[in-house]
């Protein structure tokens, strides 16, 4: 069960944007109406909150540089995904920047999942906070910050991200579908995780509060 904090005001503003021809691209306009393709909000939600069932990540409140790097990665093929790649394919550099900035400044919606069963929680928290150095796995928080809320701009906020999406990314690194991380830092970690590790750590971070007040 997910709590979405939508205010009517935000919804209203969402419907009122107008495109001005030849001006710098409007990030919100792209998010709401798309840039020739499907509107981003159709999948990522009206407030950029994403969706657990669809595996659509929360974008709201994430770092702008990080988001832009991801859109470029879908374009250049270092991040492969049959659903998202076509959405990024037609974006110009200016549009990438505009839509990334738009999502970055959105307030972080409350998408925090409920606390998982104790067994998953304990295993996930242990990986997150201690790692497992006997398998050369550092603690996730050593790179993603003390609460998984990210270290801008290279280490994304993974707290309060959807579990299905987190798990999917870790597997994407294992299979090579995603290879856009700087110096292979994340791939090195993901490739050492077992399926059980992935399930536990994804559930753990999904249940943690996302970065507040960024």
């Amino acid at each position, binding site marked *: 069960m997910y709590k979405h904090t939508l205010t009517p005001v935000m919804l209203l503003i969402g419907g009122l944007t107008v495109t001005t021809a030849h001006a710098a691209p409007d990030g919100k306009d792209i998010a709401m109406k798309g840039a020739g393709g499907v509107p981003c909000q159709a999948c990522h939600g009206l407030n950029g909150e994403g969706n657990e069932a669809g595996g659509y990540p929360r974008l709201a409140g994430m770092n702008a540089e990080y988001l832009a790097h991801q859109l470029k990665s879908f374009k250049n093929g270092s991040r492969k995904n049959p659903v998202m790649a076509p959405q990024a394919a037609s974006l110009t550099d200016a549009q990438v920047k505009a839509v990334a900035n738009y999502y970055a400044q959105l307030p972080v919606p409350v998408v925090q999942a409920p606390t998982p069963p104790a067994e998953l929680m304990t295993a996930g928290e*242990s990986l997150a906070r*201690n*790692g497992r*150095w006997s398998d*050369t*796995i*550092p603690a996730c928080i*050593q*790179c993603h*910050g*003390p609460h998984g*809320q*990210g*270290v*801008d701009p*290279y*280490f994304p906020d993974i707290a309060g991200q959807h579990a299905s999406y987190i798990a999917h990314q870790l597997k994407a690194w294992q299979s090579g579908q995603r290879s856009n991380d*700087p*110096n*292979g*830092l994340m791939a*090195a*970690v993901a490739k050492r995780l077992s399926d059980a590790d992935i399930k536990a750590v994804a559930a753990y971070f999904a249940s943690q509060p996302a*970065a507040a*007040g*960024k």
Partner: protein
Amino acid sequence: MRTLYLQPAVTLAAALIAMPLAAAQDKRVDYQAELPKSPGVGESGYHVPPPHGDYPKGPFGEAVKRGEALFTDTQTNAGEYVGNGLNCANCHVDAGRLANSAPLWAAWVAYPAYRKKNDHVNSMEERIRGCFTYSMNAKGSKVGHAPEPGTPLLTDMEAYMYWLAKGAPTGEKLPGRGYPKLDKPPKPYSPERGAKVYADNCAICHGDTGQGRHTADGKGYVFPPLWGKDSFNWGAGMHRVNTAAAFIKANMPLGKPESLSLQDAWDVAAFVNHHDRPSDPREKGDLADTDAKFHKHQCYYGDKADGKVLGTGTGN
């Protein structure tokens, strides 16, 4: 002082060839046979401390817990004695558990011990105070010096170490102690070449100017500073090029140990230590004298960088 390729007398890792624990317990071992090689990174044969969080019960367990917290979050729990931005665990990875990252369990069974650095037999308490004085730059802290002998937090840290060493043989040089000693680099190490290694492999975490990185709210370091006012001082073991090279080769970049070439590890260690940092607390106004007395090893103390003498310090 830059003394190239001296045998690093003080490196702890110097004599790590020891018998793996399993073999030592096996009665059939032929004790006349050549000692087996020290196991490499990730291979078995290292002491295994009790699992994370599996604390003993009662008041002793509470002391162990406090000791661990002091070690991993020194900033919060012993902040009044810390004059930089570091935590003990920054150089003793995995809360002091990791082999080849100067693990605490290997240290525990090796003291009291004679140390050349101060020319007498040191207790464990004194060793820990030494790390406060140099690695944690205690002179720049609120109190202005390391915790006095007998301070309860030192007992808590010792309780933590004692617990980690459970079952390890006292007096043995355990495999994985210290940082593994490195072979000489093919070419003499060079801070100039190291600058590129740093930019390509380290700056993403430690920052373009070695300043480390904070979380968005600016509270504490996620990636510790490598030089400048918030790093270890000129008396810390890590300021030696050979010691830093050994640590870096075995532990950095985080999550990718042993991935740098031997040459790159030495070069980047030289680059990191070719910058100013808090002064050596043993220096009382005469840098040349301190250089001659305490820096006859592979380091840049008293040398010049960008026209400035290294060792004059960064204000704290």
